[in-house]
C-alpha cells in the first residue's frame, strides 16, 4: 500500500505556480485570482526549500486561444536546477517543442488532449512518454467522476461528457508518461485530497500519478501518499502563503515512514 519499500524513488512534493501576465496567481475554485508573486523569485525560493519539481500553469493561455509566451520558461530554466513542467496553451507538437527547447522538462496538456486525443500520440512520438503529462480536471458526483475542459476561466468551462476513468485508460494507451489528476470539487477548499477518486485512478494507472486539489494541512499529504499511493502531491496556496513550509512537510512525511528526498 505505502511506497516505503516498493522502490527507492522518493515521493515528490510539487508546488504549482499558476501564471498570468508574468505573475504567479492563485484563486479559490478557479475564481478570483490573486497575485502571489514573481515567477522567478518563487521558483528559486521553492528550489531552495526542497521542492522536488515545479509545475507552471499559464492560466491565461488556453481560454483566450493564445499559446504560452516562452521567454519566462527560458528564465526559469536558467535559474533553477530541479525539473519543471509547463502547462497551458500547448496545443501542437510545434508549441510543445518551443517550450521544451527553452528548457522545460515536461509539457502538460489538458483541454487540447480532450479535443484532439491523437495529439497525445503525436507528442509521445516526437518527445517520448517521459515528456508528456496529461492534466485532467475531474468532478466527483458520488462515485461517478467526469472530466471538465476549458477550466482556466469559469465562464468557458465545459463538460465534454467523458468518464474520468475511461479517459485515464485512453491516455495511458496513447503513451502518456504521467497524469496530474485535479479533483475540482476539492480544489481550493483545503479540506484534503479526494482520496477515493485518486485511489480509483491509482488502481488503473501503471504510470506516475500526481494528486492535485484540496491540500490544506500536513496530514492531507500523509493521507494521500499512504491511502491513494500517489507518486507526487501538488499544491499551491498552502505553499505560496507560507502556511506549510516544505522542509517541515518533508520532515513530517519522513517521520510517517514515507520516503522523501531530504531538503
Amino acid at each position, binding site marked *: 500500500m505505502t511506497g516505503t519499500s516498493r522502490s*527507492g*524513488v522518493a515521493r515528490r512534493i510539487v508546488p504549482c505556480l499558476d501564471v498570468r501576465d508574468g505573475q504567479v496567481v492563485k484563486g479559490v475554485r478557479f475564481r478570483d485570482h490573486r497575485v502571489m508573486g514573481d515567477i522567478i523569485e518563487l521558483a528559486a525560493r521553492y528550489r531552495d526549500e526542497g521542492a522536488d519539481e515545479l509545475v507552471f500553469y499559464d492560466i491565461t493561455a488556453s481560454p483566450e486561444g493564445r499559446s504560452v509566451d516562452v521567454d519566462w520558461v527560458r528564465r526559469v530554466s536558467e535559474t533553477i*536546477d530541479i525539473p519543471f513542467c509547463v502547462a497551458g496553451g500547448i496545443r501542437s507538437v510545434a508549441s510543445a517543442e518551443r517550450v*521544451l527547447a527553452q528548457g522545460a522538462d515536461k509539457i502538460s496538456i489538458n483541454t487540447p488532449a480532450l479535443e484532439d486525443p491523437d495529439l497525445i500520440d503525436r507528442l509521445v512520438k516526437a518527445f517520448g512518454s517521459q*515528456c508528456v503529462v496529461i492534466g485532467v480536471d475531474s468532478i466527483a458526483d458520488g462515485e461517478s467522476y467526469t472530466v471538465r475542459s476549458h477550466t482556466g476561466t469559469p465562464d468557458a468551462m465545459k463538460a465534454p461528457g467523458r468518464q474520468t476513468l475511461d479517459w485515464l485508460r485512453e491516455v495511458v494507451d496513447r503513451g502518456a508518461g504521467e497524469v496530474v489528476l485535479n479533483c475540482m470539487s476539492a480544489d481550493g477548499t483545503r479540506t484534503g485530497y479526494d482520496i477515493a477518486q485518486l485511489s480509483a485512478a491509482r488502481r488503473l494507472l501503471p504510470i*506516475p500519478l500526481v494528486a492535485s486539489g484540496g491540500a490544506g494541512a500536513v496530514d492531507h499529504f500523509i493521507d494521500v501518499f499512504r491511502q491513494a499511493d500517489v507518486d507526487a502531491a501538488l499544491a499551491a496556496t498552502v505553499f505560496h502563503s507560507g502556511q506549510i513550509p516544505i522542509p517541515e512537510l518533508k520532515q513530517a512525511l519522513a517521520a510517517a515512514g514515507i520516503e522523501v528526498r531530504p531538503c
Partner: protein
Amino acid sequence: MTIAVVDSGGANISSVLHALRRLGAEPRFTADPAVIGAADRVILPGVGAAGRAMEVLRTHGLVDVIRNLTQPVLGICLGMQLLFESSEEDDARLISLIPARLRRLPDREDLRVPHMGWNAIAATRPDRLTQNLGGSWFYFVHSFAAPVGDWTLATSAHGRSFSAIVRQGNFYGAQFHPERSAGAGAAFLQRFVESER
C-alpha cells in the same frame, strides 16, 4: 577551458547548457568533429530513443570521433547509455566503449516505468568524481538501464540494481540528470569539469 556539448538531436538540451553556465563555464553546443575533438571536456547529453540518437551521431560522422576522444567525456542519461555496446531499446548498436547491453527496467504491477523521480545512489568504488556523493539524491528519467559491472562507480535501484554512474578510462556517464538534481547535481558537474585529463 572549453566544454563541447554534443548536438545529438532532441528538443530538451538547453537545461544542460544552463547548468554549465551556472558553474561559470561557456559551453559550445555543436556537432562539429573539429570543435568536439579540440575541447577540454566533452558532454554527450541525450533525451529520446537510443536508435534515433545513434542515427544522428552517424549522420554527423561522430561515432568514431567520440570513441577516439582522450579528454574527459561525460554522457548524461541517454548519452551515458550510448557509451555501452547495445540496448534492448530499438535493438540498437551503440558506441561500444563499455561491453554490456542495456535492458528495460522490470514491468511489475508495483513499479512505475519510466523510472521518473528522485532516487539515492550508493558508491561502489572510490573515484574523485563520486567522492562524498554516496547517499545523495539525483533526478532520474529512464526506462532502460545499464547492468552493474567493473565500469560501475555508483548504483541506484528501481526494481533491480543498475549503474547510476559509470567510468571507463576517460569516459564517464550518469544515468540521472545532474542539471536537474539541485545541489548534488551541481557538485557532480563541477567535479567533472575539474577532473584531470
